[in-house]
């Protein structure tokens, strides 16, 4: 105890305030965007793909974020863009988790050659810098939001496969599992009833923390021109359209701030989550 009171200036509180505030901010930001996703159709804003005003108008009372090169309302497009970014990231994470953890669970449970082969595949996939792999896949499949999603699932599943395998391996040797096997439970039953329920939590936590990264990579692919197609109001492609009209800074500003806030929100959540789970910082 005395050591903990020593000079380094490390004060420890039972439940530090800073730990909660970022989580709250994170929840606030993400909550806002989820709300936007659900209700944006009812907002008193223009249609995101209609030309509603003169083109390239700076922000004004009628168009808070200005208008883009086609005279569309940037605010409306930014808000509608949340759907594509969040829904796509959701889909990517869900599929990556499902595919990854299934493969990981099988590898961990079956072991032997299957494990070796699957894990080498995981190793190789993880050896690619994510963006290069995603670019190669989207280039091969052809640009488009769906193909970008496929690319990102390919990038992300190995992470969950590795995680799940580790979990399954550690749970597998526990007594109650061995007891179940001894009692004659089938493989699928053992895996589903006894192993998986105990292996989920780290995967969920990781998935939350990866969300922001998926949003970023989606936008990046769209920015390069390998993601969403016009007139879809996707943030990355909006910024890439805005980059052409560089002097009209407001076209990029809306979607840029949107991406930043979503990623920041998830990072806040992830940070808080990590602090909560890391026994060291408690």
């Amino acid at each position: 105890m005395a050591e903990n009171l020593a000079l380094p200036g490390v004060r420890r509180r039972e439940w530090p305030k800073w730990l909660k505030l970022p989580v709250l901010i994170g929840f606030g930001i993400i909550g806002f965007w989820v709300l936007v996703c659900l209700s944006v159709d009812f907002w008193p804003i223009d249609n995101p793909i209609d030309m509603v005003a003169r083109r390239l108008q700076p922000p004004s009372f009628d168009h808070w974020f200005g208008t883009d090169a086609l005279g569309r309302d940037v605010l409306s497009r930014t808000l509608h863009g949340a759907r594509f970014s969040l829904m796509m990231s959701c889909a990517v994470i869900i599929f990556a988790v499902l595919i990854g953890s299934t493969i990981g669970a099988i590898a961990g449970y079956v072991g032997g050659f299957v494990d070796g082969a699957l894990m080498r595949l995981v190793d190789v996939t993880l050896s690619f810098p994510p963006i290069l792999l995603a670019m190669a896949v989207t280039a091969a499949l052809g640009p488009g939001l769906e193909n970008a999603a496929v690319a990102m699932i390919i990038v992300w599943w190995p992470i969950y496969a590795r995680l799940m395998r580790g979990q399954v391996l550690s749970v597998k040797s526990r007594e109650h599992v061995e007891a179940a096997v001894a009692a004659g439970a089938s493989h699928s039953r053992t895996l589903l009833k006894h192993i998986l329920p105990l292996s989920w939590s780290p995967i969920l936590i990781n998935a939350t923390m990866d969300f922001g990264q998926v949003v970023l990579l989606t936008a990046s692919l769209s920015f390069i021109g390998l993601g969403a197609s016009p007139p879809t109001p996707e943030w990355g492609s909006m910024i890439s359209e805005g980059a052409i009209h560089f002097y009209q800074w407001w076209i990029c500003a809306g979607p840029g701030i949107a991406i930043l806030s979503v990623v920041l929100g998830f990072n806040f959540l992830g940070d808080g989550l990590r602090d909560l789970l890391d026994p060291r910082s408690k």
Partner: protein
Amino acid sequence: MGRQQHVRWASLKVAAMLYAGVTAVTLLPSTAAADDALVIARDIDINSLDPARGFCDTCQIYFSNVYETLVGLGKDNATLTPRLAASWEANADQSQFTFNLDPGAKFSDGSPVEAKDVKWTFERLKNIKGGAAFLMDPVTSVEAKDAQTVVVTLSGPNSEFLNIVSAPYAGIINSDVAAASGATAAADAETTDKAEAWFLANSAGSGPYVLANYKPDDELRFKANPEYKRTKVAISDIVIKHTKDAVTQAQLLESGNADIAMQIDPDTAKTLNTENLNVETIPSYNFLYVALAPGAKTAPKLSKEIRQAIGYALDYDGIIEFTVGGQGTKTPAPIPNGFPGTSGLPEPKQDLEKAKELLAKAGVPDGFEIDSEFPNMNSYGVDLSLLSQKIQQDLSKVGIKVNLTPVEFSVWRDHVRGDGIPLTVSFYAPDYYGSAQYVQFFGMMEGTPWFNRAGGKNDPSIANPATAELLKKALASAGEEQEKAYHELALGMIEDRIIIPVVSPNLVLASSKKVTGLRYSACCNLLMDELALQ
């Protein structure tokens, strides 16, 4: 390398760095590496620097200035002028041409330009089957009568042949030098020619400039050809700096880091601080068009009536306003305004009532859905994505729902040629001054690219039987009669409504006030030997 040497090398480097540091301090007020080359900012889209293979806008500029054609195009963008050929004559039905070469013309290595080089160049262009090989399609034989005389025999009358040989792709190559580097003009050149890589680092022409250096995605550097005497070359070094977007080009120009910016779009041009700049907006011969493919695999019914309805549904003025900020002109037919046969063509107009009426008559009063892919790029200042979205909006007013998919240009090319794309947008810039190339590209007759792309094989009904005959007539005639034939061809293409030109974007010629002699050439884009610095 021995260890001893290694150490010595290392200490040498350290010494060099120390030396650099010391001199750096003493020379501190000196400016950046003085380089008085004229700097041109443009997007370098080179696919090859071999005249028989390259086919792109930057290639056009490069070939025009490094290689010389037999015939040149005058400043009026219509009259042909002597270049390598001091004079020429055609036989009565314009199927055989004899060129008398300028005896003073020399390649950059000092050797004279001879008839054998012309023969070799033309045969190679044809046999390599590259991007511009179609130029040689009419040619059946090239004969070098003597060192100074070339006779070209065509398969039929072609009044445009002189215009064809004025295309930069038909620039004459020094055959001895190129052949020594693996180039060949033989019939199997397409597989046996090994010179493409050599052409990326060397040039072998007689033009005012020679290739100094090419770094892909970075710069293309020219230096004056000392052997070139035809005109006076004022600037000895010119560099084209790869600058992708208009805004950056404008920035370079404004900051004085570039002397000429070639692809500033009208929107950006408005933001330019013109104090030290000459900014001129002129009509161009480039145009963008909507293309319909009734024979495409996924196409809905696209009868002539429906195609015409689409033609009436488009808001031409709006398109020009949206895509180029009003800086463009309407083009009635897929032949640039000012080319033979285009005077007096009816201007396209939006007429929603008529469009709806035509749709009703065609049995689709409530419209239909149509898939559209377009190349995701910016051409001649027009963002094709913007253009497509505008068209999508226009057509929605008559109930036609367009599903847009942007694709990379290479993918688009693949798709448009394969299954076909029911509705797309694209662009065209002239390879030389002449209207036949447009009929041969857009005309609804067997063998033209757009006949195939529109699905002529699946739906032969889209062919326009009059086209082939009229073209033959146009090529065999001259003057008034030729003009009339092209005019009829243009009217036919308007009637067909497979190709609906929507905008001919103006060209912004922007340069620093020091630069003189900048102009836009219909054949050659930019002629560097005409440039000078005040």
